[in-house]
């Protein structure tokens, strides 16, 4: 896939995307919100590798960083279920 921006040809790394699509997060309430929001900018292995050592407060800080610094357009009402999911399935036991 090529697209042209500012005179530079951009090749999206399709082979890696195909492998990335095999990544499966744990099933549970809130998972679809993670796929909707987080996977726009990064693969979901970012969540897997940072587990299970972040407590609820640390996951909350991470979500806030993604929204406030990285610009993730997460609706305020979607934050609690995302935090619940990450704490429950990828949080510090």
């Amino acid at each position, binding site marked *: 896939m090529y697209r042209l921006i500012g005179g*530079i040809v*951009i090749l999206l790394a399709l082979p890696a995307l195909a492998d990335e699509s095999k990544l499966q997060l744990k099933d549970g309430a809130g998972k679809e919100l993670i796929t909707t929001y987080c996977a726009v900018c990064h693969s979901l292995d970012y969540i897997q*590798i940072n587990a299970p*050592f972040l407590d609820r407060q640390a996951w909350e800080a991470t979500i806030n960083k993604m929204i406030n610094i990285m610009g993730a357009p997460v609706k305020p009402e979607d934050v609690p279920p995302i935090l619940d999911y990450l704490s429950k399935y990828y949080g510090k036991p």
Partner: protein
Amino acid sequence: MLDRRQFVQGTAAMLAACGSSWAPSLVQAQSIAAGAEGLPEGAVEAAILHALPGKRPLLKRTFRPPNYETPLDVFHQAFTPNDAFFVRYHLAVIPEVQAEQWQLTVGGEAVQQPLTLTLRDLKEGFQQVEVAAVCQCAGNRRGLFQPHVPGVQWGYGAMGNAVWRGVRLKEVLHKAGLKPEALEVVCDGADYGVITKTPDFIKSLPVWKALEDTTLIALEMNGAPLPHWNGYPARIVVPGWVGTYWVKQLTALNVSSKPFEGFWMKSAYRIPKGKFPMVDRFISQESDTNTPITEMVVNSLITNITNGQSVESGAAVEVKGIAWDAGYGIQRVAVSTDAGATWRDAALGTDLGRFSWRQWTYRFQAGPRGQQTLMAQATNRVGATQTMSLIGNPAGYHHNVVQQITLIVT
């Protein structure tokens, strides 16, 4: 900096020597396990050997942005092959730059005469120079931090050693002409985030560092054009300083009279003041409590033996490794085969330049049946040494704790 002919001869001899050296298959098989020792459970599960286009299979930490680590067995070689060199990006859109269309703009309020340079301008208008240098991610070994800290959970392989060839950054800056008030050189690459609001990955260098003879705009590594994943067609090379400054797919240099305020300078890549030995300061970016990370700390890696490997009692064992620092030079590597009770010097290999890592070897006879713990500690020429315990810091940088590798003696 090495004379090119001298360097090429040295490299050829070294590569030939490495090619015939001992390459235990055990190490190959244990690559993944070795990279995973001490990592968070989730990072172990997510790690697979996976090849990006043009690369051999590397240890995948994350797919997108791509973060891939070099497996341990590759570090037997003095120079890390381009297709095995680690990959580290913060932002997911990485334009595949076409050489004919690529341009470097040199501007900013603190230059006399803004410039636009093509690849041909860089190749034909400036002296081509080379430097052998280690490129290491600031967060290499972050995954080994206890307690763990968030970020890419790297094992030992977010680093590589290469011969970088290109032009001196200072010559390009002098062509544009620096005004007396020039303070920082702000480097931007072609990569960007999926969302417009994501801070672009832009790094600044203090002018004094940008003007050093060894700071380059590299077009090649190890005698070939840079691979796409390592910054084709041009990247900044700052020997001695951590990889964060080595901006890939370089597109713009802006010289500023004020400290650059971007997220990747003001908030990221910072270490607490006073906790680490540090000679090179980046004063215009310092705050009361923290400072940008600059130089690499002295470090070493045992490359041919992994934790839990078996050896027969009385057998001759050769430990191989590498040691590096920020360019002061490796003074000694001390090895202990009794968990730190006694230490002896390893034999240092050829000096390939002060910014290159240095290979070393140490031979000993395996002790009585049971366990035997190996350790290696490098010291540099300004007296800095690897630490015995972790120096904690929030972002997980500068891990240079002495390794402890347990051999099972049978």
